[in-house]
């Protein structure tokens, strides 16, 4: 069961990610990204991260992606214009590069990281909101507080940059 779930959602995630990269219109990409995020949320659940899975859906797939889509709509951009002459050079350079990146990363993971135990839903539940909240407000209190500054910066920044534009 776990395997099927994993494979299914992994496949969705990868497919959506590929779609994200292939689509020329940002809206399609954004929707693909939502797809990735949602399927990742399922995988988080599988890994015992119930709280984080929820946050993933609510904050990430919900709030952040909405922001993206909002801006895309606001700017009303078209899809990428096809270039007058098909320039294959970037792809010719980028693809080997990317293959070597994935190759290196995967090689390390496959050969060096201990395969680890079998991931089975329910074997780890340390990611529930209670445990999460305990850690967050004791040991990680400071970063949590500082995060508020971060958000503040983001707000100020957005206002400064886009005050009169919106």
């Amino acid at each position, binding site marked *: 069961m776990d395997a099927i779930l994993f494979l299914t959602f992994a496949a969705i995630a990868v497919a959506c990610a590929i779609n994200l990269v292939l689509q020329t219109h940002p809206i399609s990409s954004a929707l693909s990204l939502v797809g990735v995020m949602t399927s990742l949320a399922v995988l988080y659940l599988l890994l015992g991260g119930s709280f984080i899975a929820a946050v993933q859906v609510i904050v990430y797939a919900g709030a952040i992606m909405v922001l993206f889509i909002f801006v895309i709509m606001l700017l009303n951009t078209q899809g990428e214009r096809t270039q007058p002459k098909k320039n294959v050079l*970037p792809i010719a*350079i*980028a693809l080997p*590069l*990317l293959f*070597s*990146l994935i190759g*290196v*990363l995967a090689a*390390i993971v496959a050969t*060096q990281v201990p395969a680890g135990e079998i991931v089975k839903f329910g074997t780890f539940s340390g990611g529930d909101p209670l445990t999460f909240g305990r850690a967050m407000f004791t040991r990680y209190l400071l970063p949590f507080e500082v995060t508020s500054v971060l958000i503040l910066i983001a707000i100020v920044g957005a206002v400064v940059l886009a005050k009169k534009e919106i």
Partner: protein
Amino acid sequence: MHQLWLIPALPLAGFLLNGIFGRKLSKAAINAVAIGSVLLSFLWVVKTLMGLGSLEEVYVERYFTWIQSGFVNVGFDFAVDRLSAVMLMVVTGIGLLIHIYAAGYMAHEGGYYRFFAYLNLFMFFMLILVLAANYLVLFVGWEGVGLCSYLLIGFYFLKKSAGDAGKKAFVVNRIGDFGFSLAMFLIMVNFGSLDFGTVFAKAVPMANETSAGVLTLICLLLLLGAAGKSAQVPLYVWLPDAMEGPTPVSALIHAATMVTAGVYMVARSAALFNHAPIAMEVVAYVGLITAVMAATIGLTQYDLKKVFAYSTVSQLGYMFLALGTGAYSAGIYHVMTHAFFKALLFLGAGSVIHALSGEQDLRMMGGLRKKIPVTFAVLFCASVAIAGVPPFAGYYSKDAILLAAHAHHPWMYWVGVVTAGMTAFYVFRAFFLCFFGTYRGQAHPHESPLVMTAPLMVLAALSLGGGYFLNVPHYLEPLFGGEHAAHDETLVLISVGAGLLGIALAALFYVVKPGLADGLARAFSWPYKLFYNKYFVDEAYDAVIVHPLRDGSSSVLWKGVDARIIDGAVNGTGSLMRAIGGGLREMQSGYIRRYAAWVVLGSVAIIAVVSFWGGVK
């Protein structure tokens, strides 16, 4: 103490006075200072020599340590022995006469004070050279006279040829000095001193070097030095050009005194040469070659002073022949007599030139014996003296040399005799061309004033009687030993005969049958051209040394090595850096995605290296 230092110091004082204040002084004052200082110097020489008596021993005066460093310890010392006594007398005596003569000769020239200042400076250095008690002090005088020669040859510096000649003289002398200084260093290293006394004392017990050794090297280098100063082959080329200087200078420096410095120096170093037979042989050969070569050139020249200049070279060759055969005293003897008659020849020539307002070309002279009789008379004296007509000065010294040559290698004697004949021929050729026949020039000849002719007469007397009355070889015997070759009457007769034959031929060609000479020249046009053009030696030097050196330095070294290779490398490094910078700029394309590609590339490489290869270690 005999205060030897006064001897050079007096002319030096004259030099300083004239040099610094001369421009504001009257001619009379300049004369007083210049001639007076030399006169005083001469008198001091006489007084000193009388005070020193027979000079069986070397008399040394030490003044101060000049250079002291490690094993090098050189004092500023003067010494007098019989050799330097002879030279002192010649230098100051002839010098005095020429100073007096010059007062008249230069009376109408610009830069009067400058001329006398230089002349005094020359006296200063020449006297240092003669008085030196070690090689370094000798070298001071040696270089100093070279300098004065340079200054005086270039006295008429408005003329480019004068400047060129001066420079040539200095540079060629420098080549000689190169040898001299290297010899000096070797002496220092091998004998631990430059002091004549010490060096010769150490040299005496040494064995003769039958194969080339350090002594031979030293002597050959000394010879190189001497050859430069005394205009020997192959460094004689400057002397004919040196005639660009005023005539008194030619007489004093380039005939009577400075050019004999080489002879003096070799004679001075006799103790070394005696142990280096190979070097001796080279000296003799050099002398002989020089004598013959210069004489042949002298046969064909038309410039009065040039004839005498080649004659000087030739006579210097004789002196070297004497040295090379071990007849040092004969060499010095010839130095002295040559000083008399050659100074006279030049001064007489000066008088002729003076009379003709500067004309020097024999072809523009002729028939002057009536117009300038005194000059004619003194020049005749000088000519017979140089031709070796007994019993005049040249006869004695030349015979001494030729006899020594015969004792050494008979064939050298025969070459010497032929040269003597040529000498007589060309001197009389000039004499006849000048004074006989008809006048071919435009100027109005007039006899020189007494201030010029008086020294001429004194010199004439010396040329006639100097050889007989002043028996130098005998005087120098304690120094160089009784080296007389057997007095062979036949040989003497042959050489005298050669001289007379030369005179006769000259008379035939230029008095009796003028025109015969031209015919002969046409008949033997190839050797004639060779002689006339001085064996093309100057041209050869130009083509082989001067031009390659100058052009090579300019185009190869400066513009090639310096500008192209070294600076090219330096600037090239800069350009390379800039090119790298340019390349890096190109990478800085401004495109975000390309930058990202670099990030990915860098990451892949770094991850692969750091994780899999475990770093370099």
